[in-house]
């Protein structure tokens, strides 16, 4: 009966949960060519949503419904070796898949059952990990130096650090985990550290005869060279790690970023959680920590320019933001799975 498949069109239904409800996009393909596409948003899984989906899925028996894994207990591990998985994460109650024999993404089995139960009336064929979406979306950027890749959704952030296609670190963050007290605590903590540093590094005035020592004045003249750092050439040297191609693309994306839907406070929460995650990556001995220069953001919500500013000013990173339509990203994965 496989030959009959050629006579039918393929209908891809992509369901993405967001804070407004559910975005459903439908793409109809006939012989690997897109014939039509439809989109509609629903507040919940109700009759109208079922009718909308059924009106297209009834056209062909070959329809595939994809959803993005929106559970909290998921993540990715920088190895595919089964005996090494437990070193990073207990995956005994998890479903996991190896990506390209390089790294593993996982999710809790309970969450999968919950999702299948949640979409029981619709029926689902694919559940994709946001880390798969992230890796697929930035597949042209994963090669090369160590960079941070982010998939920003309404409630979740998928954080991945990749170097030469190899995942080094990953974390799935829930924005609701953000607590202001924690922020204050950490900020205070950081301030304390700063104070300690200042104390530790404070100059022992007793040992210096500042005014009398002419040699020291001579040496002060050398500080005049610091002004040269502001010259354009030096700035260029600093920007060696910048992604020129992505910079160019950014100019085109700029308008999209300007039409941001996300509030600045949400973006700060996101930045704060990401910053913590990066700190964890640097500090945790389990991971091969390498210095991160660039941040690639797959923006599904429309983050504000503040987000970019936070990264640039507080972490001195080059930030490149690309808009991502999650429905389209799910479609691409589903197509690749079915070799369409």
């Amino acid at each position, binding site marked *: 009966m496989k030959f*009959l498949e050629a006579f039918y069109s393929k209908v891809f239904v992509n369901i993405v949960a967001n804070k407004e409800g559910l975005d459903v996009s439908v793409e109809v393909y006939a012989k690997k060519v897109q014939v039509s596409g439809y989109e509609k948003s629903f507040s919940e899984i109700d009759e109208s949503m079922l009718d909308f989906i059924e009106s297209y899925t009834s056209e062909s*028996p070959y*329809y595939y419904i994809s959803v993005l894994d929106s559970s909290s207990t998921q993540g990715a591990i920088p190895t595919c070796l089964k005996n090494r998985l437990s070193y990073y994460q207990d995956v005994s109650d998890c479903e996991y*898949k190896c990506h*390209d024999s390089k790294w593993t993404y996982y999710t809790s089995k309970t969450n999968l059952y919950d999702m299948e139960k949640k979409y029981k009336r619709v029926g*689902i*064929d694919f*559940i*994709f990990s946001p880390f798969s979406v992230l890796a697929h979306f930035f597949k042209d950027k994963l090669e090369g130096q160590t960079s941070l890749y982010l998939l920003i959704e309404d409630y979740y952030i998928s954080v991945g650090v990749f170097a030469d296609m190899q995942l080094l670190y990953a974390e799935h963050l829930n924005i609701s985990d953000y607590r202001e007290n924690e922020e204050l605590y950490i900020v205070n903590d950081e301030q304390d550290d700063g104070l300690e540093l200042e104390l530790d590094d404070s100059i022992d005035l007793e040992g210096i005869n500042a005014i009398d020592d002419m040699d020291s004045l001579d040496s002060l003249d050398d500080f005049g060279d610091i002004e040269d750092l502001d010259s354009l050439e030096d700035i260029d040297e600093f920007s060696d790690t910048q992604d020129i191609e992505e910079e160019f693309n950014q100019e085109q994306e700029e308008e999209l970023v300007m039409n941001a839907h996300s509030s600045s406070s949400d973006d700060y929460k996101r930045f704060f959680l990401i910053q913590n995650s990066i700190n964890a990556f640097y500090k945790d001995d389990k991971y091969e920590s390498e210095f991160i220069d660039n941040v690639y953001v797959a923006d599904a919500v429309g983050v504000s320019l503040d987000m970019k500013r936070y990264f640039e000013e507080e972490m001195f990173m080059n930030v490149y933001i690309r808009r991502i339509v999650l429905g389209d990203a799910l479609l691409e*994965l589903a197509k690749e799975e079915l070799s369409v």
Partner: protein
Amino acid sequence: MIYSYIRPRKKSAVTPEVKLLFTFFGITLLMLFITYAFLLYKDYNFVNDLNLIAQKNAVVNQNLSEMKSQIEFIEKENVLAQKIQTKNSVLKDSITNLFDLVPQSITLSQAQLQQNALILHGLTPNKDVYSFMLQAPLRSIFHKTYSSFYPAGDGWLRFVSTNYTDEEATIKEEVIENEN
């Protein structure tokens, strides 16, 4: 490449509607096939029967022609038999008549009936008895009559009477009789 945590549900082009359609078409095709096979069988049978009948017909025709020829032969035989019977009855009558012609005093020893002739051998007491009692009626029947005598030894005479009919004269007489 596999990305999804779950495998897609099994898809089949055979929906209940298509299944119904296939079943319907299947039954229809099956019935058509059975009908076609039945007609083929009947056709084959019919051709076989036709050949047999043609063969039988040929045999019957052959028999018929043989029988016709036999009937013709039998008819001819019948005609011949009737002719022979007629001739025999005529001959029988002739012989009866002939013996009726022979008087008591004359004894016949041999009589030969030929196509156009009658030859009689016998004993007569004398020529006169023969001439009056036998030769006279013979002459009325035959066109030509020849008699010869020779002595028998006891005073009687042996005679040989040879009588001929003229065919042409007989035909003419018959024609005249028919005309009358």
